Each structure stands twice: as C-alpha cells, then as structure tokens.
C-alpha cells in the first residue's frame, strides 16, 4: 500500500493502519510508574509512547517563585525531552531542546498553568517532565493525556481531566467545502504519516461546569476547549467539522483515562 493516504483513502475508506475515520488508536496507560516522583504515568497511543513524571508542589527556587507571580499560586514548569531514538531515524542532539519539544512544552505549561488549582499552593513549583520514548504522531495530544494522568497521581487538585486528541481531514482541503459533494472525511487521532501529509489540529478539552440547575440532572456533561493548536493550512469551512470530531475523541479518551485511574486503585 502506498504511503499516499489521499489516493488510497477514497477507495478503501480505511486509513493506512486499517482504522476507520473515527477510530482511535489503541490507548494504554499506567499511573504510579515511578515511585520516586510525586506522580507519574506511562501512556501509549498507538506507537506514540510517553513517560511523564510530576514533582511537587515543592518550594520554588529562590527569586523565581517568590516573585509576584509565585505569590498568587504555584508555577507550572514543563520540560519535554524527545528521545533520540524516538523517531524512525536516530537523531543526535547537540544538547538542549529543539523547536518541536519546546513548542510542546510551552503549550503544556500554558494549558496546565491555567487548568490546575494552583492558587492552593502559593510560592511553590509544580514541575512536569515529559519524556517521549516513541514518536508516531499526536505528540502534543499524548503529552496532554500523560500529564493529566501524572498530575492526578500526584494528587494535584484540578477542576477536571484535561484530555487531548488530534483530528484532520483526509485531503488537502484547500478549497471551500461543498456540502453536496463532500468527498473528504474528517480523521481522528492521526499517526505520523498522516500528520505529515494532511492538515490536522490538536484539541484539548476538559469537563466544564454546566450552566443551570436542570442541566446537572442528566449525566451529559458539557466540555470546554482548553487547548487548540493547528500548524497546517486548511480552508476555514472545514474547521468546525474537525473540531467536533476532535472533541468527540477527547471525550472518548477521557473515559479511557477514567478507567485507568479507577483501575489503578484496585491494584
């Protein structure tokens, strides 16, 4: 099968790895994998594997956390390390972090800084270390999920689980969408070959407090988008579809993560 998804997909309606458009890859996760840290997790989505460990909330370094920002609440530090053996061809890094990992770190820090209940821990630091062991697409989404699990394991209060997922379109989608002749399908949870040739976005959602009293009675909970990131070009008429598919994927992942958290307690 050729690597060109855009030619094979319309014929088979199956993606390169045999999934349908709305199928997630196999998600496996564990928490409390590293007893030396406050909280830790291992998460794999398909062939993307991520280890995450959380330290803290601990007293911040002098001068950093004691400033004006630190007095309001804890400061979240994120450190992302993509292993040299993570992708297909081995990368010899000349030390430091590359552009990709520092972008993921910035996004994660912004997302969790505002998401966690940091006001409970003034003058302290929560440091998150993300290690990408194997990179096969949806890195940011997998990192969000791994961080959420590790933060839950660390017992850091948060309003809800923050989960991430990617969604894309099964073609270049550079022209306006035609509702009558819609040959492009949205795709859920992209792998690396798909990411490289298709437009995609990463969305992270969290459970939101529903508005109004009667909304509380049914179990259906509204979600709110906390992270949204897109690097590729796409006609704006497709965004809404991709966003809906991505948020649906986030809800699926949230249920999986809840199962992981509940399952780990029985052990």
């Amino acid at each position, binding site marked *: 099968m050729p690597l060109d998804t855009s030619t094979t997909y319309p014929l088979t309606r199956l993606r390169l790895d045999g999934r349908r458009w709305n199928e997630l890859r196999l998600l496996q996760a564990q928490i409390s994998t590293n007893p030396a840290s406050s909280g830790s997790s291992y998460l794999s989505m398909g062939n993307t594997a991520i280890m995450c460990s959380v330290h803290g909330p601990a*007293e911040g370094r002098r001068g950093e956390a004691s400033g004006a920002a630190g007095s309001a609440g804890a400061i979240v530090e994120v450190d992302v390390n993509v292993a040299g053996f993570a992708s297909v061809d081995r990368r010899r890094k000349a030390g430091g972090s590359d552009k990709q990992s520092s972008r993921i770190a910035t996004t994660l820090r912004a997302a969790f800084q505002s998401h966690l209940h940091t006001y409970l821990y003034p003058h302290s630091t929560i440091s998150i270390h993300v290690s990408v062991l194997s990179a096969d697409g949806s890195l940011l989404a997998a990192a969000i999920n791994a961080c959420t699990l590790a933060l839950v394991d660390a017992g850091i*209060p948060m*309003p809800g*689980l923050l989960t991430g997922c990617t969604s894309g379109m099964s073609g270049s989608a550079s022209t306006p969408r035609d509702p009558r002749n819609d040959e492009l399908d949205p795709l859920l949870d992209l792998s690396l070959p798909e990411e490289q040739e298709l437009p995609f976005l990463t969305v992270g959602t969290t459970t939101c407090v529903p508005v109004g009293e009667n909304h509380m009675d049914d179990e259906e909970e509204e979600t709110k988008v906390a992270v949204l990131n897109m690097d590729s070009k796409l006609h704006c008429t497709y965004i809404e579809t991709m966003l809906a598919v991505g948020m649906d994927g986030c809800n699926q992942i949230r249920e999986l993560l809840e199962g992981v*958290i509940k399952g780990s307690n029985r052990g």
Partner: protein
Amino acid sequence: MATSIPSLAIPGQRLGSANTYAAGPGTHVQQANIFASIAGPVILDPAQPNTQSKATLRVSRVLSAAAQSSPTTASAKSKPRYNTLPAVDSIVLARVTRVQKRQAAVSILVVLDETSAPDADLAKASSDNDNIASILTSAANPENHSSTDELRFQAIIRKEDVRAVEKDRVVMEDMFRVGDIVRGCVLSLGDQTSYYLTTARNDLGVVMARSETGNMIIPLPIASMASGQYALPSDWLEHEDALGSSELHADSSRAATAVALAPNILSVV
C-alpha cells in the same frame, strides 16, 4: 434529589449539591455543586451537632483498597499507625550532627507519638516509635553515626531557640556535643533543607549523651546527669557555679559524677 455519592471520585466528577453537603478537602465548589478535585475514595463525615449543620464531603488522597471497600462509612478513629513526618509542635528525638557557633545541626531519629507515649503501652503499639530504646542506643553508639544521618530529616536548633532564659548567653559548644540525643519541639517546617527545632521548654533538651571517654551519661531527676567513670573537669565546676546549679551529685570518693545543666537544657560536656 437523592443522588448517590460515588465511591471513587475522579477529578471533575460531581459529588453532590452544596446545599446538602459541605465541601471538604479534595473538593471544590462551582455553581452550587461540589466537585472532586483529586482522585480517591469519597468519604462522608457526618455532621457535628455543635459546629456545623451539614455533613462534609471530602476526597481522600489514600488510594488503598481498604478505604475503597467502605467508601461512605467514615472511620473517624483511623489514625495513621506510623507517624513519620514531623509537623509543627510535634516532639522529636534527634541526634546532634554538627555544632556551630550560631546553630546546631541535628538529624531527627523519631517523631514521638504524643498519644501513645505517656501510656508506656509499648507492648501493644506497633509503630516505629515502640522500640525507642533500641533506636536510641544504636543512635548513641559512635559507630553508627553518619552512616544513616543523611537519610533522616535534618533539623536545625538555632542559638536563640536553645533555652527560654538568658538567650544571649548561650554558648552552643557548651550546650550540645556531636552525638547527643536531643528531645526537641518542631518550631516550623523550615526551608528546603531542614526543620527548625526548639529546646526552650522544661521537658526538652539533651536526654542522652556520652562523656568524652565514651561512657553513657544518665540523666538524673530534674536537672542533673551522672556518669559512672567520668571525672569532673575543673572547668565544669566553674561552669556549674556560673549557672547556679545546686543539684550537683559530686561523689568525691569515686571521683565520678557529674553533671549537667542549665535551667532547662541538659547540657553535657
């Protein structure tokens, strides 16, 4: 609205209405509803008749199977058996590891359990604190020093926390010697490296020590200590006089004896 309380909470899960319950640790309130902030078993503390009118919902941090099996039955008497973390106001036994001009560095050996210690019911209890005697004798043994000190909680007794009176006259070298066992009270959790202890109370101070020749110095009632074979140095007498101690057990015939103290610190040579 009779909603059942989930046994195991996950962050973001709704636990109940804020009108029915009070929000305890591990929960937060939004839109008049109580939500879990952390993962763990949900515990319902029954309402106290005097202080509060509503039962308190809290989420425990303990992820144990035992707590999970009976999630909503509050076990009020479940006190942790092991009391390993020093907290403010807890009484600890610590060994002096370094004496400096302004402070003495100690490492905390035991956090005393204030509920079980006075009972002396050592046969029943099964925590770390039971074999205090064995911990202390091994601790006072010079050969055991420094091997395990780095693994224990470090603490600092500052010069001004040594005793309550005549604070400015304290000479740290006369108060502590490396290897002494000190009973202290935790003043604060301190900084990243060490707790702060105080010995400025009548029941606090050096409780066990060895003389320069290595013999045990045994505390005597009130404020004295005696040593079996320890000859009292001449400057000791002066020191005692200066401190105005009247409890000196000087047994001149055996040239032995000894020692101790300032009003509340049992200082040992």
